[in-house]
């Protein structure tokens, strides 16, 4: 079964861990580079160029990390579920590795979003935490990530872990909108007139630029880190294959 004989380009070619490993290795520096550049420019604009908010003063500047992390946390869960679907539908092992590699980063971004949210909430709302619809659903998203990671970690057989966690990711992604809307409904019922963040003032163009740059930086960082994780996962899983031994220079 050698794919090298066919010259025709095929996506399946890179679905094999062996061919994906060197490709991922070549891509990581590029994504990491873009992440660092965008992150530095974004932070510079966010901290030094963007105007001071007339209501919140300087404290709003944490938004450039907070909002970008919150976006990524939700986005990654959806991508993870898409990879889980690909894995279940087509039995591509690489898709499972991608899903498994995305989960820790997603959980970290969820945590960062909650943490920076608390730091932002203290000076602006006067409290570290409110049971607001967004905060609560973000917290539940963290629980979903933790459940996924624990299930994956608890099952030793990689095949079973892959299938079970893929199914859980699908059940989770079906439930995320239901959870979000029920939390929203619950929140409007409980808190009549509390802090409303939906009526945010229109953002200055520089703020938006910084935010978009930070999101790109986080996105590229995610890709770079996920590729690294997949690479080490490939090496672990294929540790008995000859090409791995040649790759790491063991030989014997």
């Amino acid at each position, binding site marked *: 079964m050698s794919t090298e004989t066919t010259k025709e380009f095929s996506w399946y070619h890179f679905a094999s861990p062996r061919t994906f490993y060197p490709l991922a290795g070549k891509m990581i520096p590029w994504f990491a580079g873009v992440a660092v550049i965008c992150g530095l420019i974004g932070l510079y604009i966010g901290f030094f160029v963007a105007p001071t908010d007339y209501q919140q003063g300087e404290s709003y500047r944490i938004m450039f990390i907070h909002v970008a992390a919150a976006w990524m946390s939700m986005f990654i869960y959806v991508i993870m579920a898409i990879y889980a679907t690909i894995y279940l539908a087509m039995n591509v092992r690489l898709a499972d590795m991608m899903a498994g590699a995305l989960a820790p980063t997603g959980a970290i971004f969820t945590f960062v979003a909650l943490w920076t949210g608390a730091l932002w909430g203290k000076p602006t709302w006067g409290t570290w935490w409110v049971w607001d619809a967004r905060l609560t659903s973000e917290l539940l998203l963290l629980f979903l990530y933790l459940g996924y990671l624990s299930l994956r970690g608890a099952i030793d057989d990689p095949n079973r872990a892959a299938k*079970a966690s893929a199914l859980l990711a699908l059940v989770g992604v079906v439930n995320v909108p239901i959870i979000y809307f029920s939390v929203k409904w619950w929140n409007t019922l409980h808190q009549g007139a509390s802090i409303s963040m939906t009526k945010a003032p229109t953002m200055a163009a520089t703020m938006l630029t910084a935010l978009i740059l930070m999101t790109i930086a986080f996105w590229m960082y995610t890709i770079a880190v996920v590729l690294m994780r997949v690479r080490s996962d490939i090496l672990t899983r294929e540790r008995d294959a000859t090409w791995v031994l040649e790759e790491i220079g063991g030989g014997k």
Partner: protein
Amino acid sequence: MLSIIRHMIWRDMLLAMRRPQDVMTSLFFFVIVVSLFPLGVSPEMEVLREIASGVIWVAALLATMLSLNRLFSVDYQDGTLEQMLIAPQPLSLLVLSKVVAHWLLTGLPLVLMAPLLGVLLGMESEAIGVMVLTLLLGTPVLSLIGSIGAALTLGVRGGGVLLSLLILPLYVPILIFGTGAVESVRADMGVEAQLSLLGAFLALALGFTPWAAAAALRISME
């Protein structure tokens, strides 16, 4: 089709009746958890009335979750589950029957016990009525969603705690609308919206979860 469901339910009920302590444990757990709240929070009836529906609902979630371990594990240990997998009947149907039996053995007793606990926590009779109705609609959904988690964690080390981590976040909507209905009736508002939504959840869960749990069982038994 119907006869196989009836036989499965009958079998599970019979097995449970031979060892009634299993069924009683989760019911006692439910009662004990609820009765800890007056000790921990406050014996004031005013305070208790405010939190009563939430306390009873959360206790019901925990009691259901604790009993989920039993759903497949006994059949898994004695090999019956393998027979179910190779049986000519669709596995999802067998799973559904097992879940129905599970609800009859754990969910229904909770529903029947709830009014008594409501009285203990000083709830108004109207609120108790609505709470029982929400539990009646909600606890089957808890068993149905839980069956997916029970199937996924079958035979996994640390399965019990893991199961709670997987399942409890998914229980949130049921909890919200279950307690929301009770609060609505206490505020003299209609409860149709919450009851309809709980009914919708039940209909959806009846359609999808047996199928997902059957897929999870096949993964776990490979």
